[in-house]
């Protein structure tokens, strides 16, 4: 049992498979605690309950009701977003928000209040959850929505699985007329050009940018801005592949992602992206989930695993902070392969501990090189904190309790909704006495 970053973490004491949604929780020792585990796609320690009981939700993958007229789906929490898309796309529906991988569970999408390339237009996943059913350690099964148990609902959206086991949920779907996306790519040089593209693309449902952090020092930051919408006249409603194309069979002792590979890759990727002029049509899978075609791509980072770092910077301080972060990345000489820049919108999620907030979000990843990498990420934290930003718990394995408390002021009201018998390695870390 591991998280996606494959960092060395203490194992859970036991793993219990949940088979049926109506089953009671297992017996628990006085010192033990529960945590749900779905597909293990969180990068850090938020999905791991070291020394505790892990409740695997992989068998909780039954649908409960699909209203094909109104686009409302209710299903068990272990169903993956990929399974949902396989079912709903042929019927002309889509998920209102999808993250960068479809191999995540519905429960995980809610517990991390995931966001996608349409955050500026649609908000987070939690904005589209109509209701959910929790199983608490006292045996109760509260139904939560904006009107029922509203505080518990708000705590559970983005609540990192700490308010009880999410058993099932009901979500709103988005109508589509094609499985294809209408996509445009545009190269940009410098953050001003990025901002201009972001502004003029406000009426595109999906926007995201990739940036090349390996460009030599002194050069301006360059990248590819892409924007897309569901095609109106695309061909067909094919749901695409249900599994990956190929698989990385094992992890080497060292990382295949390093400065010798990332530099050339980025140059080729930039060159190829910049050549694609005009509008093109592409299936939703390569557009939303390019990395899902390679199963276990995390093994490319070697046996020591890797750190993801995603932060959001508020509008007033964003440009300076982004420049400072990118300067630090370049100066460190540590290569980051998947650098993503995206403008968040101002649609508020119901979630108390939700990460997305208005501003600019930047995601980076680094092979785990021990203290060297940790020091670099600590320096990022200082920049983000000074700018009044936040770091994303779903991707974190190392932020300090202070850093967490400063970025998530709602944690005090969240604590009142916690289930006392649910915990995680992440939660114990950020709640350690400061």
């Amino acid at each position, binding site marked *: 049992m591991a998280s996606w970053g494959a960092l060395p973490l203490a194992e859970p004491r036991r793993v219990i498979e949940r088979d049926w949604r*109506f089953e009671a929780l297992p017996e628990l020792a006085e010192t033990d605690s529960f945590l749900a585990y779905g597909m293990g796609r969180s990068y850090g320690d938020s999905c791991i309950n070291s020394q505790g009981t892990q409740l695997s939700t992989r068998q909780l993958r*039954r649908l409960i009701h699909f209203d094909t007229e109104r686009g409302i789906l209710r299903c068990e929490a272990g169903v993956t977003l990929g399974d949902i898309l396989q079912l709903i796309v042929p019927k002309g529906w889509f998920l209102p928000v999808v993250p960068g991988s479809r191999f995540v569970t519905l429960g995980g999408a809610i517990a991390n209040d995931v966001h996608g390339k349409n955050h500026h237009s649609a908000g987070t996943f939690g904005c589209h959850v109509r209701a959910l059913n929790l199983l608490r350690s006292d045996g109760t099964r509260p139904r939560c929505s904006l009107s029922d148990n509203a505080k518990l609902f708000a705590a559970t959206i983005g609540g990192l699985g700490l308010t009880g086991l999410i058993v099932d949920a009901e979500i709103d779907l988005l109508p589509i007329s094609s499985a294809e996306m209408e996509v445009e790519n545009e190269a940009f040089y410098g953050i001003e050009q990025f901002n201009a593209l972001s502004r003029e693309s406000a009426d595109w449902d999906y926007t995201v940018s990739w940036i090349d952090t390996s460009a030599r020092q002194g050069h301006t930051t360059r990248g590819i801005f892409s924007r897309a919408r569901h095609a109106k006249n695309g061909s067909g409603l094919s749901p695409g592949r249900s599994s990956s194309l190929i698989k990385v069979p094992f992890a080497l002792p060292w990382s295949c992602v390093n400065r010798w590979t990332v530099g050339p890759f980025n140059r080729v990727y930039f060159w190829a992206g910049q050549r694609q002029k005009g509008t093109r049509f592409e299936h939703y899978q390569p557009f939303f989930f390019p990395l899902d075609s390679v199963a276990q791509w995390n093994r490319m980072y070697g046996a020591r695993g890797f750190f993801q770092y995603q932060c959001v910077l508020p509008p007033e301080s964003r440009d300076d902070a982004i420049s400072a972060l990118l300067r630090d990345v370049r100066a460190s000489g540590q290569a980051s392969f998947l650098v993503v820049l995206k403008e968040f919108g101002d649609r508020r999620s119901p979630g108390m501990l939700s990460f997305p907030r208005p501003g600019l979000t930047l995601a980076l990843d680094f092979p785990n090189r021990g203290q060297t990498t940790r020091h670099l990420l600590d320096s990022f934290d200082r920049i983000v904190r000074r700018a009044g930003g936040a770091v994303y718990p779903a991707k974190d394995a190392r932020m300090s309790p202070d850093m967490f408390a400063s970025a998530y002021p709602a944690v005090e009201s969240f604590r009142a909704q916690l289930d006392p018998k649910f915990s995680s390695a992440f939660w114990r870390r950020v709640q350690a006495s400061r």
Partner: protein
Amino acid sequence: MSLRVLVYGATSGICHEVLKRYATEGAGFFLVGRNAQKLAAVADDLVARGGEVLGSSSYDFKDWGQHEPVIAQAVERLGAIDVALVAHGTLPEQLETEVSTAATQACMDDNFTSVTVVTQALAQQLALQGQGKLAVISSVAGDRGRKSNYTYGATKAGIDAFLAGLQGRFSGTDIRVVNIKPGMTVSPMTAHMAHGLLWSTAQDIAPGIHNAINRGTPVHYAPGYWRLIMLIIRLLPTAVVAKLPI
């Protein structure tokens, strides 16, 4: 016209995965299981995927007098049976059966007697109709008696003989008898076991099983490499098998 499917053991992990594929095609189901609550959860899922549940029944499969009336009721609801799938079973602890005659008998009742009784009754129904597919989930465990699970294995070996006989009985007719032999599969039934290299998931093997039923394949190993593995194990001398930790 959409297929009419009668299922015994509809709540089994492998079976449910296969049923999902029929549901997507718009099949009509009559579901039979031991637990009404679990059966309802499976029924909801199949309906949400586009299937139609025309009826269901839950009872103790050792209640021998129940089988015939339930099958009669299913035939009445479905009109006729295009596909009958018998998938119920339990996996006992081998060591427990060695020290308990009650556990041995329960294993025989769950995995052999109730399966053959139900299969015989379904075969009779298909014989009356003159056509249809009759699929039974057996196991690679029946291919050779081995010390690690011979009580369970014996029930499956018995089913193999039973199905081979039915295939003979229906040769030259439009009735197809399909013997499905899964290898080690991750499911609620095997959740307590350590899962190694040769394990599959129900999702992995369901498409092959669905195809085998539709084509009427006499013996389908799931996944296919078990045919080779079990051929080798069958060819090994008794003295060698006795020494192997299997």
